[in-house]
C-alpha cells in the first residue's frame, strides 16, 4: 500500500500525457461511448420485443451467449482482426454491453402487469402510447438495473482492454508491469481507481434513474396522506320486525 501511496502523491504521475488524469478521462470516454452505442441498440430492441411479445428468442439467446463470452478473449480476437487499440476495444465493449441491457429491457417490459396494459388499452390508448406512457415508465427500474449492470461490466472490462492497447486506467495496470516502469504502486493505483470510477458511475446512474422513476414505483413506499375514514358499511333494507313495544303501558 505504501508503494501505491508514493505513486499517488507524486504530482508528476498525475499530469501530462499518460498521467492519471489523462487516463481517467480516456477511461470515462471509452466507457460512456460504449454504453451509449450499446444502449441505443439494445434498449429499443429489447423494449420492442417485450412490447410486441414476439421474437422472445432473440434477447434470451443473446443474453445466454453474452454471459458465456470471456471478455479478454473477445478483445484479443478483435484486436487481431481489426487493429490493436481503442477501436477494437470499443467495438468489443459494445458487444459485451448489449446483452445485459437488452435482457433487462425485455424482461422489464414483458413483466409489466397485464392489467395495467389492458386498462390503458381500454382507456383508448394506441399501442405506441401504451409503450411510451405505461410500459416504459413501469419498466424503468428494470431498465436502470440493466444499464447499471452493463456499466459495471464495461468499466471493469475497459481496464482489461488495455492489454490489447486501449487507453484508460487499465494502462496503469499493464504499463506498471512492463519493464519500463516495474512499479507495483502504479498497478495498484490503477486497480483502485477503476473501482472508484465504477462506484461513482453506478451512483450517478442510480441518481439519474431515481429522478425519472415515478414515485409510485420506488421501492420505498411514498408517504401519503392518512386514508379517509372508511365509509360506513352499506345498510341493507331489513325485514320489518315486530313493532317496538309501546313505552308507557
Amino acid at each position: 500500500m505504501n508503494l501505491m501511496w508514493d505513486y499517488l502523491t507524486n504530482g508528476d504521475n498525475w499530469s501530462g500525457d499518460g498521467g492519471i488524469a489523462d487516463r481517467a478521462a480516456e477511461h470515462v470516454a471509452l466507457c460512456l461511448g460504449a454504453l451509449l452505442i450499446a444502449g441505443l441498440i439494445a434498449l429499443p430492441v429489447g423494449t420492442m420485443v417485450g412490447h410486441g411479445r414476439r421474437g422472445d428468442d432473440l434477447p434470451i439467446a443473446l443474453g445466454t451467449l453474452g454471459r458465456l463470452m470471456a471478455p479478454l478473449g473477445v478483445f484479443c480476437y478483435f484486436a487481431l482482426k481489426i487493429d490493436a487499440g481503442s477501436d477494437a476495444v470499443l467495438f468489443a465493449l459494445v458487444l459485451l454491453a448489449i446483452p445485459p441491457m437488452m435482457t433487462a429491457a425485455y424482461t422489464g417490459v414483458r413483466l409489466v402487469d397485464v392489467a395495467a396494459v389492458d386498462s390503458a388499452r381500454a382507456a383508448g390508448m394506441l399501442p405506441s402510447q401504451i409503450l411510451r406512457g405505461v410500459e416504459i415508465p413501469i419498466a424503468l427500474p428494470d431498465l436502470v438495473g440493466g444499464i447499471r449492470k452493463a456499466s459495471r461490466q464495461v468499466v471493469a472490462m475497459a481496464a482489461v482492454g488495455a492489454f490489447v492497447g486501449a487507453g484508460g486506467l487499465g494502462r496503469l495496470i499493464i504499463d506498471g508491469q512492463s519493464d519500463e516502469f516495474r512499479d507495483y504502486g502504479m498497478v495498484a493505483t490503477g486497480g483502485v481507481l477503476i473501482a472508484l470510477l465504477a462506484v461513482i458511475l453506478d451512483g450517478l446512474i442510480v441518481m439519474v434513474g431515481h429522478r425519472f422513476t415515478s414515485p409510485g414505483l420506488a421501492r420505498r413506499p411514498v408517504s401519503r396522506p392518512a386514508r379517509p375514514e372508511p365509509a360506513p358499511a352499506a345498510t341493507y333494507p331489513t325485514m320489518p320486525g315486530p313493532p317496538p313495544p309501546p313505552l308507557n303501558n
Partner: protein
Amino acid sequence: MNWAWENRSYLGDLLGDHAVLAFIPLAIGVLLALPLGVLVARSPGSRFTVLGLCAFLQAIPALTFFVVFPALLDTKLDDRINVVVGLTLLVLALMTRTIGEAVMAVPGPVRLSADSMGMTGFARTTRVDLPVALPAIIGGLRTAAVTCITLATASAVVGVRGLGTLFTEGYETGFETEVLVGVALVGLVALGADVLLVRGAKLFAPWSRLVPIR
C-alpha cells in the same frame, strides 16, 4: 482445430489451472454464504449492514481485487491466491444476497406449519427453509459459476496461468486460432457448469420444476 488437437496436453494443463481458479472460489464462497445468507434472512438488524457490504463488493471490478490483494496478502502479482481470494469475495457477495432473499421469500404459512410441528430454529432452517429456497439458490449459483469461469480469464492480464493464458499468448504471437480455441473452451466450460447445475437441480431437488429457475 488441428492446433487444438496437437496441443491437447497443454490445453488440459491450462484447463486444470483454470478449474482451480474458478471452482475453488465457487465452493468456498457458497459455503461461507450459507450461514451469512440465513443470518440475513433471520435477523433484520444485520440485513442492512451485510447486504450493503455485498452490494459494495459487487460494484468492485474483479481486476481490482487481482491487483490489490498482492499488497494486502503479501503475495506476488502473478500468484493465483489473489485470484482465488478475489473471486471468493465476489461469489460470497452474490450468494449471500441470493440466499438471504430466497430464504426470506419462503411463504409464511410454510414456516408457520414447521413451527407448529414443533421444529426448532435449526431444524426449520435446514429442513424447511433451505430446501424450499433451493431452486432460487441454484439460480444464483448458475450466475456465480458462469461469472467465475469467465472472469477468471481476466487474471491472465497480470500473468496468472489459466485458460486466459491462451488469449494473452495468442494475442502476443498474433495467432488467432489460439484465441478462438480459448473463447470456445471457456464458453464450453461455462455452459457445461450451467447445464450441470440445471440437471442437478432437477435430480436432487425435484420440486424445482414447481418454481422455474431462470
